[in-house]
């Protein structure tokens, strides 16, 4: 069983090394609950597809996204799109005027439910949900976690979103990274919520030094150009 898995991983790596590229990459947005996955997915859609289209609703209640949603046919084309960076201090190369890049990437973006090892319906009661509603949400959230895990079999690359205000060295983050490394699937870590005062993207970079860590604010649109360029570089 183990050797079968190892061969699969080696074949995956070989295929990637030989640049066997499909036309469109399926990119999963993964992370723990409330990291900002739906906000990032919406930001990508608003920027490159339709500013009035949402793939989901982002709220402060954990597990708001309980079904994976795939938005097919997104083209990240930075040659034709200027991006304003609301906080140029994040990147010393940033200018105050809108920036253009060179990257182009066709992708299907998959917004996934938050990964967790525990789901307690009592936690939802604190957000004002009735008990029946909280139990229903908890049940759907467990199904969502399973769905997110199953999607890993069909994904060509992932953006792992972490909340820069939280400790990044959680078992869930370590498991996702370990799985991607074992499968030979490229991974980018996006250190989200850098617009908050207690954000520390450097803590994430220190915890996972072997991976690209891009500090962003999906909500405010900060430093998105760097993320898109890294996505085009790693996932093309």
């Amino acid at each position: 069983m183990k050797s079968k898995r190892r061969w699969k991983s080696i074949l995956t790596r070989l295929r990637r090394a030989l640049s066997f590229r499909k036309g469109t990459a399926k990119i999963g947005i993964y992370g723990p609950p409330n990291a900002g996955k739906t906000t990032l997915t919406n930001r990508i859609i608003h920027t490159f597809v339709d500013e009035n289209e949402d793939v989901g609703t982002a709220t402060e209640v954990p597990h708001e996204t309980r079904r994976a949603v795939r938005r097919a046919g997104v083209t990240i084309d930075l040659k034709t799109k200027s991006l304003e960076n609301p906080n140029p201090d994040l990147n010393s190369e940033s200018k105050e005027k809108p920036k253009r890049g060179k990257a182009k990437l066709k992708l299907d973006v998959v917004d996934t439910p938050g990964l967790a090892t525990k789901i307690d319906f009592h936690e939802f009661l604190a957000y004002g949900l009735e008990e029946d509603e909280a139990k229903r949400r908890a049940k759907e959230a467990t199904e969502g976690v399973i769905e997110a895990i199953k999607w890993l079999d069909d994904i060509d690359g992932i953006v792992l979103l972490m909340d820069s205000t939280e400790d990044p060295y959680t078992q869930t983050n370590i498991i996702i990274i370990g799985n991607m490394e074992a499968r030979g699937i490229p991974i980018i870590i996006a250190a989200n919520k850098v617009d908050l005062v207690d954000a520390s993207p450097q803590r994430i970079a220190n915890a996972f030094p072997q991976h690209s860590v891009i500090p962003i604010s999906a909500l405010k649109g900060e430093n998105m150009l760097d993320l898109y360029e890294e996505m085009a570089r790693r996932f093309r």
Partner: protein
Amino acid sequence: MEIKMNLISEDKINSMTSTEKLRFVLDGVKSGDIVVLEGGLTSEEQMKLIELTMTEVDDDFSGIEMSGYPSKKGFLNIRKKTRLTVIGPAKMMHTTKKDKDLISAIISAI
């Protein structure tokens, strides 16, 4: 109230298939035990454990808390060597601090 810990040797873990390991761990945790695995679980096994756990979450069992040392690179940097993993019921175990070589957790009776 007493809390039971099961410290499982690497030899015992290696004698089990992946499915047996996960069932063994989850059965122990669901009965309120803290399970410590010498040699640990691979990241793929840990992901499967999360998946299996999610199928069994209900009003009484909210899931698991899991902590482990990250695996080490092994022979020729290809084969990874897993290290200790500790798993407990989410209602009883809470990891307070964790880094590459240290896990601090509070374990309390329900």
